[in-house]
């Protein structure tokens, strides 16, 4: 799979405009749309995304190399030194519900 450039990716967000620490991000990529929802927390200059949910069929078509491109796009765009992702309850795969 071709490795994307950061300029190939676009972001938009949905927020409930309160102090509730939950954000949804839609990422438009060359293989389609990805949607993530998580509880973001800044720890120094590292963004921690707790309880991450993902959906959309493009999720399986991204590949690890392009996930890193997305992560770099986030870190560059938000001026971060680190990005930590902590998953939520499984809805698929082995042992859903855990």
């Amino acid at each position: 799979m071709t490795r994307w450039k950061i300029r190939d990716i676009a972001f938009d967000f949905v927020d409930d405009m309160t102090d509730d620490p939950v954000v949804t991000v839609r990422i438009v990529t060359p293989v389609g749309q990805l949607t993530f929802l998580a509880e973001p927390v800044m720890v120094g200059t590292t963004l921690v995304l707790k309880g991450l949910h993902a959906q959309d069929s493009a999720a399986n078509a991204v590949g690890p190399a392009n996930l890193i491109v997305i992560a770099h796009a986030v870190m560059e765009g938000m001026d971060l030194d680190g990005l930590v992702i902590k998953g939520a309850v499984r809805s698929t795969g082995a042992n859903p519900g855990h």
Partner: protein
Amino acid sequence: MDSSLRERFARLGPIRAIDRVTSGSPAVFVLRLPLDGPPPRTIDAIHALARRGLSMLRAKRAVESLLEKGRVFIDLPTVEDTRAVTDDLAKAGIAAAWIQPDLTVNVRELRERLDLTREQFAIRYGLEVETLRNWETGKREPDTTARSYLRAIANAPEPVEQAYAATPVV
């Protein structure tokens, strides 16, 4: 999220507010995970709940609880149409059913079923005789709390009596 974090995300792309339903009534639903079918679209489900007045965090917790337990009850503050909620959740792969409130309790019928006079019923369940009379004659309606208590009596008269009797007198 707080404003400083929102500013950081805004450097990446536009931020829009969730499209909340602006008018409607509270409604309670039971949500279930279907035994088969594709995995649920959890983010769509969270948004469907948040659009009806739950905070995003409460909506997220509710969906996560559903994934863990397979069933969850949810009280949505602003429901424009119960069918719209069940349709939205069905599209997200979640079975939802509206629980219709049945708050009507025929107080006289309940008391007579238990074979009690007004005085006996009032003493047994900690009510005032005059209040009972007003409910039975239709002069007044029990409020939500009283209706819930009466429903509990109707469903389990002896355990409620025992629970009430066990209440320590201060």
